[in-house]
């Protein structure tokens, strides 16, 4: 498990970007209600950082070309993105948001 940040640091309605040497890919963390969602921060279309985007309920809109991704499934609602972004299961342990390391491992599919 990799510890990402204290749950207390997550503000509803805001995206927290995690980019650290010990985390294989940049991540975006979002708290919606009581649930914490963790997705790849890099858009599946080009290279935008989704944490620069607009949050609307369970959706995050890419700041460059406006595909909207569902935080629950990773799926985009419309082009230009066609592929989903990866979603990662997180747990809160002792107030820290943690993610399974295996979930972050890059596959041939995602390593572009």
């Amino acid at each position, binding site marked *: 498990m990799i510890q990402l940040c204290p749950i207390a640091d997550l503000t509803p309605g805001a995206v927290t970007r995690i980019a650290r040497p010990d985390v294989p890919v940049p991540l975006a963390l979002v708290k919606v209600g009581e649930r914490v969602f963790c997705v790849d921060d890099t858009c599946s279309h080009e290279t*935008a*950082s989704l944490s*620069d*985007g*607009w949050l609307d309920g369970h959706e995050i*809109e890419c*700041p*460059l*070309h*406006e595909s909207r991704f569902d935080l629950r499934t990773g799926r985009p609602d*419309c*082009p*230009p993105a*066609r592929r989903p972004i990866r979603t990662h299961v997180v747990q809160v342990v002792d107030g820290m948001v943690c993610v399974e390391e295996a979930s972050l491992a890059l596959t041939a599919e995602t390593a572009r």
Partner: protein
Amino acid sequence: MTTIAVVGTGLAGVRAAEALRAEGYDGRLVLVGEEAAQPYDRPPLSKQVLLGKCESQDIALTDEDLRAVLDAEWLLGTRATALDPASRALTLVGGRSLHADGVVIATGARARTLPGMPQLHGVHTLRTLDDAHRLREDLSRPGRVVVVGGGFIGAEVASSARALGHEVTIVEYEQKPLLRQLGPEAAGILGRLHTDHGVALVTGVGVTGLVGEEGVREVELSDGRLLPAEVVVVGVGAVPNTEWLTGSGVACDNGVLTDERCRTTEPGIVAAGDVAAYRCRGGRLRIEHWTNARDMPVIAAGSLLATLRGQDPMAQPVHDPLPYVWSDQYGVHLQIAGRPGVDDMLELVSGSFDDSFAAVYRRDGEISGVLAIDSPREFGRLRRDLRSAWSIR
């Protein structure tokens, strides 16, 4: 069974087909496209495709899943040559005819050329994948490049050619590139982007001739200068593809005229994308940018289906988005929203005009546009402010 024909298989055509199915249309769907290639996306043509960073399959607009959902007949490599509004019959190249109950016009635009110029090797326009491949081929050899026109496509081609190691000159008729679209300050900033990256900018002159025997050798300017060139790229705008509608009764004037719901002057015929000049509160707009071609077909599909189903099309949503365009040049992301007037004041909001920044245009104190370089987050915030101002216009 009902038949809907979508003419044009670019972004707008594919999106119209997608929207028709998403809205529950289960009749016959025929897509007629002049290009033989499977539908593809154009923005990468001047960027990643020229740089050799992506191939045809990376820019496909459809995949197997989408084609299954669309369940359409694809007539690719097939140009529509006429439309008879009374029978709503399309004439296809070769004389075949196709009857349709509803028609979506999505024939886009083509690159404008310089009139009266000789046909020489090395002279290009850039609109299609074939164009991009031909240009990439020419750019694979050393040689000087002259780009005619400093608009978005010209700027992106210049940036790509420069990245490939060429000596590049942009010739722009106005005093600054994009002057009339973005005003003097922003045009100055974008002009500096070129010169900072080693691209020469020749402004305030026109091109009067192309000189060469087989291949182009020189570009002749209106001030008498001759610029040596092995490759010339003409980026002087686009012309809507409406000629095939001559005699159809569908009214055209620099594009297919539509109302706020994408309906043309003929019932059961809608238009969307680069080809459509739509009515909106701001008057009439024909937008040649990607986001418009993505979103407008959804409105067009909605109003066409309402008409075919005998429902009130006036109950359907209208197309009146905040115009948006992005461009990638010299490794920076440029984003512009709204329709700023040339005389609107540009006001810095964050960053610095010498580097990355976000800025707003103001007219009589009111926000009229947003311009940003490498500041997507700030751009998004400002665009939302502008969107609220736009919707109460």
